[in-house]
């Protein structure tokens, strides 16, 4: 009987018609992720195979997205490039959020000296011009997928730390945290069991936005020639390559740019959507 009483509330919350603003970005991101995962098995031509006679061909039936300056298949390069962008875009903020989240949560929970140290550290990181720091890092350690990911991951630490610190502070003073202490819970237990699950939704929403920021940052690094090393395609690198022929074959730069634009836009839309869902003003009720 009361199961049916609870039902209308559920329907009201979930039964909203799926809006295009949610469906389209979700579909696009799903497509990019799907292709990036299955790239090896869907019969794509080798993204590095050159066919110099067929260079700078516009999109056609044979080459769906045309060919680039060296006659390589653009579709294949876009998809393999998407794999690179996603690996960097997902892993770098994940790494940054793991470390930044730990720093921010400790700072927000323990306050006092821990907070002072953490905020100082974050401010120092923030004071560096981000892209210059990444450039220096990659130039010094050498260009590789791992180093680029690491560099961009470090760049996302301060933002992650700030978000988690602010969220932790908001939750740490709630009575349920005090209540947990009065039942004898340790700090570690309170942080991981009481506070973390509450901070996580906001962190996830922010992480989605961070993914898009990192994809752009990786593109910028590649564009400047310090991204993923040459034969391996990446969106930023493709834009950089295509720039040379912008007047004769604009598609070589515009297609990767459009794909990156759509992906970043979709991720931002999704991030906003998730953020609205976990809005603290609603979650308290």
């Amino acid at each position: 009987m009361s199961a049916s009483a609870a039902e209308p509330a559920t329907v009201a919350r979930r039964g909203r018609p799926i809006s295009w603003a949610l469906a389209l970005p979700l579909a696009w991101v799903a497509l990019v992720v799907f292709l990036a995962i299955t790239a090896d098995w869907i019969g794509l031509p080798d993204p590095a195979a050159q066919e110099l006679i067929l260079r700078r061909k516009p999109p056609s039936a044979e080459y769906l997205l045309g060919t680039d300056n060296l006659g390589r298949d653009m579709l294949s390069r876009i998809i393999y490039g998407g794999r690179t962008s996603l690996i960097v875009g997902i892993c770098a903020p994940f790494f940054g959020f793991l470390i930044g989240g730990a720093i921010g949560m400790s700072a927000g929970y323990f306050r006092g000296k821990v907070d002072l140290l953490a905020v100082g550290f974050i401010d120092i990181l923030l004071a560096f011009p981000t892209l210059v720091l990444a450039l220096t890092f990659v130039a010094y350690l050498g260009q590789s997928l791992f180093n680029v990911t690491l560099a961009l991951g470090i760049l996302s630490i301060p933002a992650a730390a700030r978000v988690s610190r602010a969220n932790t502070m908001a939750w740490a003073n709630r009575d349920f945290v005090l209540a947990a202490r009065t039942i004898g819970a340790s700090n570690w237990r309170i942080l991981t069991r009481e506070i973390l699950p509450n901070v996580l939704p906001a962190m996830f929403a922010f992480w989605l936005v961070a993914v898009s920021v990192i994809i752009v940052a990786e593109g910028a690094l590649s564009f400047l020639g310090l991204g993923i090393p040459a034969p391996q395609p990446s969106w930023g690198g493709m834009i950089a390559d295509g720039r040379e022929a912008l007047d004769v074959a604009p598609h070589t730069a515009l297609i990767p740019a459009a794909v990156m634009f759509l992906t970043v836009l979709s991720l931002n839309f999704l991030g906003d959507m998730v953020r609205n869902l976990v809005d603290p003003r609603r979650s308290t009720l």
Partner: protein
Amino acid sequence: MSDAASGSVNGGPLLSVRDARVGFSTVRGLLRAVDGVSFDLQAGRTLGIVGESGSGKSVLVRSLIGLVGTGSGAIVGGDVRLDGQDVRGLSARNFRQLLGRDIGIVFQDPMTSLNPVMKIGRQIGEGLRLNRGLDSAAAARRAVELLVEVGIPEPERRASQYPHELSGGMRQRVAIAIAIACEPKLLIADEPTTALDVTVQRQILDLLQREQRERGMAMILITHDLGVAAGRADDIMVMYAGRAVEMATTREIFRGPRMPYTEALLRSLPRLSDATHTRLSAIPGRPPDLARRGTGCSFAPRCAYRSACCEAEEPALSREGGRGFACFHPLGAGGGTSA
């Protein structure tokens, strides 16, 4: 049945507090939120701590159980003994154990005192798993039993729900279930009904009183409402500006307060015997600034009976029989002086 069911060792009080102090350093100087409060609480008895907002009643009790954050720059002093054991001298680990086993606390607002992303049953079982070593299945069973005990219908279903699916009154019942899960010797109720509908308030107070009696727990009931404390507390401590200004049994307080502040509080309560449309008297003025305390009695500026000595010197808490009051001009010798 007001007998001390779970008698303490050596027959002393269950909780003994001497000269408790809590100060916060602010930009305007040291704010003395609690300024030398002492009291004893016998096992199985209920102490009502009454005072207006900012009188230090919550801070006092929270400081006793280590909930006044050290990170907030609080300076905590005084001697606290639970069952004769020095609480302040315990290691962090032992103190957590003591909190978990011997003390339960119910907060004011059940909206914030439950974790919004943890199921009810789990929240109740958490303490049992931590302190009683129950496995999750046993803790879950006990959680359902506790839900029954605090009067929640359909306990199995409720146990698997989240706090936002429950009403305020039900949430407070859940909070009580969490507080009593580990059979504490001392239950602290910090304004447990302030955030609730008037109709629910009484039910929650009845529930607290019933649990307290059946389990022989001692209870500290913090409230700003003398009416709430009236029928529930054995003893009442009235706090004003961080100090205990009157301490007596509930009967004595209501029969004849000695401290003018207590009298003023009583007169601001509606009484059934009053004629209709009788104006309730308000206490003029405002509580003092705790960071700029003068030399005299802190209630003097608002007191109808003040004299020169009140402003020159702080009255100490004087004892007379079983009761205490801090006033140079105590009201009547026990008789009704509700002038």
